[in-house]
């Protein structure tokens, strides 16, 4: 559904990422890993067309540049790390904002029962039904992250981009989130692209891995191939394999 060819992008004319090519098919997720500052977030922003890019990005055979904001956001949802919070709305109101494109038309913008049902399903998915009337400023970091995820789900996109979605989540929440997203992608013939620092979580989310360093693509392919290559050791400039194995040994003992 998504194809990138020789994509470069950045801010204020300077390229942060260079010459990235990748492909994501429906029912196939992709995890992006790499050291801090390697351009993972910039890549996601380019895919969501939040920043201009060079090269080509096509979504279902249509070049992103030729699509309106509305057309892009109806298909791509993004959960980003950066947000402001100038006013405070309730959890329900905030998640309802994800319905913006579905509700907003020239004459009315009142949510229908169907919209409310979508929002409630999204809240159920992130276990926040009980908190729906709480103000978002009163939530913990993990709850807030789940509110924004619910908002992205309420958007009903076909491709979800996740920038560090598990930052503030405990291990159980992380696993539930990944499991939910995998089901979500599978049941609707959709896809998830996730930037994840935790390599174990990345492996859980997808069969495919994109490894980035210094704004460039180091490798992309099946998880087992990349792990077997020892490529991560080189990318992170440390013995990732041994680190993981030694941790594992303590568990199995």
């Amino acid at each position, binding site marked *: 559904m998504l194809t990138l060819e020789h994509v470069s992008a950045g801010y204020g004319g300077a390229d942060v990422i260079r010459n990235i090519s990748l492909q994501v098919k429906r029912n196939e997720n992709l995890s992006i890993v790499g050291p801090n500052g390697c351009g993972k977030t910039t890549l996601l922003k380019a895919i969501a067309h939040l920043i201009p890019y060079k090269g080509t990005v096509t979504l279902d055979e249509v070049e992103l540049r030729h699509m309106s904001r509305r057309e892009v956001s*109806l298909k791509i949802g993004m959960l*980003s790390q950066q*947000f*402001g919070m100038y006013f405070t709305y309730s959890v329900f109101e905030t998640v309802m904002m994800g319905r913006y494109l579905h509700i907003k038309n020239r004459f009315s913008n009142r949510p229908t029962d169907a919209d409310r049902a979508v929002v409630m399903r999204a809240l159920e998915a992130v276990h926040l039904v009980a908190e729906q009337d709480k103000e978002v400023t009163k939530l913990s970091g993990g709850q807030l992250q789940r509110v924004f995820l619910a908002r992205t789900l309420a958007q009903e996109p076909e491709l979800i981009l996740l920038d560090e979605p598990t930052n503030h989540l405990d291990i159980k929440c992380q696993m539930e989130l990944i499991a939910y997203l995998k089901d979500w992608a599978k049941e609707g013939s959709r896809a998830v692209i996730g930037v994840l620092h935790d390599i174990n979580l990345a492996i859980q989310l997808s069969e495919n891995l994109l490894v980035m360093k210094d704004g460039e693509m180091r490798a992309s392919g099946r998880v087992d191939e990349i792990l077997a290559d020892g490529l991560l050791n080189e990318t992170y400039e440390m013995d990732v394999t041994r680190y993981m194995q030694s941790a594992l040994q303590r568990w199995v003992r």
Partner: protein
Amino acid sequence: MRIKVALFVVIGLVMVLLSISLGSAHVPLADVFHVIGHAVFGLDLPEHITAATVSIVWSLRLPRVLLAFLAGSALSVSGAVMQSVLQNPLASSYTLGVSSGASLGASLVLFLGVSLPFLAMLTLPILGFVFGLATILLAMAIAKRIDGSMGNQTIILTGIVFSLFVNAITTLLFSLFLNDSNRMIAWQMGSFAMRDWHTVWILAPIAVAGIFFITRFHWELDILSFGEEQAEAIGVNSRHTKTTLLVSSAALTGSTIAFIGVIGFVDLVVPHIVRRLFGPAHRYVIPMSAVIGGALMVLCDLIARTVLAPRELPVGVVTAMIGAPFFAYIYFSKRGVSNGA
């Protein structure tokens, strides 16, 4: 919430009616209704109502009160939008240079005797409006050159710098034409005195249309409060929406002060009061800013023309005298609540 909305709409109406009734010559409320009924629906007038009363109510007070209400509404809505879009509790059309630009336009008219062909009577408001709007457009164009993403801080800073510069030109004109400066000073203080129905008929459609247009963006205003990038990802065309809102609210302020002069503080204070009463959702903030802002301006004008009667104070003095301490109270009394409003 509905009851609260209804309550404040009623308060606004009562304020308008009281303001027509009260003044140097007191007209009982019943007579006010009779005169309005007579003028609008052609109903018969009771015998005790004189032609002078009819003239006071219909030709002097009613247009003046309506104008005050319209101006208060327009300025408050404009202020609410500026504060929300720029995410700054002190932002207003004035910060961005609208009043400086309008003052420059007005001083060209008053000092240099500039006059538009065919529209001589309207030269002052038209030039005031055009200069006000031109200033903010120019400031925004420069902000865009400096910072392609049009960050809020850039817009505010450019606006402030630009309005200081434009003020300097106005001051220069002042110093060159010191003898004619009385009218200019009077204009800058703002007043609803000596306005007739003509002004109401011009300002009413602009203000009403502007407020309706802005109200349509209430949800975008909510969504933008989480940041432009998040709004963009949800599908809001952030930069376009932001520019549309800033320009339309500057136009609201511009057309208002073009007719009545510079009146400060209402646009700053009213949105804060409204958010306190109705919460941050803009589907309430925008319309209720219009209602409460209108009512407050009517009250300020009532005070301006009665407190030292028969002398009349400039309404801008009243709004500032009430507004400044009130703003301080509202803003500082709730510090620690993290909604920044």
